[in-house]
């Protein structure tokens, strides 16, 4: 049983193919995050699921029904847009009830649903305001409210948090997670922020240039990236990738130490310190190993100075190896 099933999905704009036959199965109540660099086709894929973009070839099923030729309104989905896309001439209440009114729902039921959603999102006092009179975070809530009132089995999010400042973004991220636990809807969520992907997803789909690179739980993807691209994309800071004797070695900054003690099976590299970035609780030490950038994440203050030559150590089993030409992981354990 799957909620959304995508088979060999292709999108072409004229001669330019931007999504190259991707396959993806999403289970009911699953929170799936599509993540990847700008222009990799995340939004396009999401918009094809929503019915806002025509499918060039392949098939999309929602709730075991092929929806290729269905209008957006007939796909039983709700969507939250990056710029919120609120109706500027309508009050918050009207924004929230618009879809329900179109369904010819009872006035009373509409009021009840709107109130429920507004309570969940803390919008009760703002119902009579226009979007122009709301802060960014409040608009974001209204946008989510518009999805919630519809009570559809599938929610689609396209970078819903990218217009918020960092603090609000963290706060809304938690709220989205809570919302998902509470409502139990299937969510497809697009972002280029890998922290969002790691924290929200049941499963992450990493995309690049219109291809899926890897599908897996956040931990799987963190521990066993399928290729050098995924390794270099996930994590903050992401995995250090350096080339040594024809192989690419991936080392996570948090796995690297400045001394060998405490490691069961240490490997050492000579490194030259470039810059220190103290973050309070931890310090990022930017170094060069064989003239290639390696970032080391140390707890507390790092006892090193710029331009100092030091030894850095990593446990052997924490290293990942990738083929130099294909980028594929070699010791997939």
């Amino acid at each position, binding site marked *: 049983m799957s909620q959304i099933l995508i088979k060999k999905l292709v999108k072409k704009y004229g001669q330019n193919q931007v999504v190259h036959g991707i396959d993806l199965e999403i289970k009911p109540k699953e929170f799936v995050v599509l993540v990847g660099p700008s222009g990799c086709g995340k939004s396009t894929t999401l918009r094809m699921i*929503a*019915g*806002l973009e025509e499918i060039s070839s392949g098939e999309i099923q929602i709730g075991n029904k092929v929806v290729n030729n269905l*209008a*957006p*309104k007939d796909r039983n*989905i*709700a*969507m939250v*847009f*990056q*710029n919120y*896309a*609120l*109706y*500027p*001439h309508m009050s918050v209440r009207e924004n929230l009830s*618009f*879809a329900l009114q*179109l*369904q010819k729902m009872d006035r009373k039921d509409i009021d009840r649903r709107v109130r429920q959603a507004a309570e969940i999102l803390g919008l009760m006092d703002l119902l009579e305001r*226009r*979007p*122009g009179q709301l802060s960014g975070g409040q608009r974001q809530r209204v946008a989510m409210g*518009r999805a919630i009132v*519809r009570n559809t089995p599938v929610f689609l999010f396209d970078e819903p948090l990218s217009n918020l400042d960092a603090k609000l973004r963290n706060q809304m991220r938690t709220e989205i997670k809570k919302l998902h636990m509470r409502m139990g809807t299937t969510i497809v969520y697009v972002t280029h922020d890998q922290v969002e992907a790691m924290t929200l997803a049941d499963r992450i789909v990493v995309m690049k240039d219109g291809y899926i690179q890897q599908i897996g739980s956040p931990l799987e993807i963190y521990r066993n990236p399928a290729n050098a691209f995924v390794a270099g994309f996930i994590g903050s800071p992401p995995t250090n990738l350096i080339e040594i004797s024809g192989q690419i070695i991936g080392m996570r900054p948090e796995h690297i130490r400045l001394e060998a003690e405490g490691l069961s099976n240490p490997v050492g590299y000579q490194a030259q310190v470039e810059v220190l970035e103290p973050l309070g609780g931890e310090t990022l030490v930017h170094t060069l190993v064989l003239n290639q950038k390696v970032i080391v994440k140390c707890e507390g203050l790092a006892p090193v100075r710029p331009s100092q030559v030091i030894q850095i150590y990593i446990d052997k089993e924490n290293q990942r190896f990738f083929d130099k030409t294909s980028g594929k992981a070699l010791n997939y354990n």
Partner: protein
Amino acid sequence: MLKRSHYENPILPYLLISPQMLIVILFFLWPAGAALLQAFQISDPFGQGTAFVWFDNFKNLFETLEYRQSFLKTLVFSVSTALLSLLMGLALAALTNRILKIKTVTRTLLIWPYAVAPAMAGMLWLFLFHPTYGVIGHFLVSNGVDWNPVLNGTHAMVMVIIAASWKQISYNFVFFLGGLQAVPRSILEAAAIDGAGPLRRFFVIVLPLLSPTIFFLIVMNLVYAFFDTFGVIHATTEGGPGGATSTLVYKVYSDGFVGQDLGGSAAQSVILMVITVILTIVQFKVVEKKVHYNG
């Protein structure tokens, strides 16, 4: 606050705007002032003498049935012209907006009528609508319609309205297209997902978002129909038949230059001036206050 520019020579800025000021004074302030003065005088047709008569000219005007009827005709003409050209402009813009990449050539062609001189536009429509040698007129007549704008006042009015609004369609089109393209695509997409079909999206989302543009255009079109249609009327009907298409602005000309009633004509132009001022004030008040959305 606007930033003040500084010039080393204090006279230079005044010198720079003097040509523009000269034009304004020569072609606007002076004639307007003269009209104002004349409105309170009567002059004999040969320009031999004038007499100051206070409000007699105005009183005479409102006492003549012809002038009061002309007011009504102007209202019918202006509202119909504005409505027709707004609807056509909006329809064209909505259709054009659906085409993703409209060719520049096509767009330019759609704007063309605006550049046609009013007299030419008038002639063009007369040639089309004339009962004997006009294509449309001939078609109507041969299909049993008793069409004759040369003799029938109502027909003449219809023809003038069509000719006058045709010229204004392009202007409306440009503004409507701009307004339509400013409607964020995602809002329409959100509405589509919410279950609104294309027609409902247009009426419930697009039109309200266009309302500032619509209001601006209503005022502009009324101003155009009131004051800027002399050329079209002169070329098609010369205010006839029997004064059927003699709008206020046309009467200013016909009473003044043809009828030689300079005082009465000046009084009429003062009344028109007052109407413009009122329209402009209304426009600014409403634009300031209501029809304005942000984000």
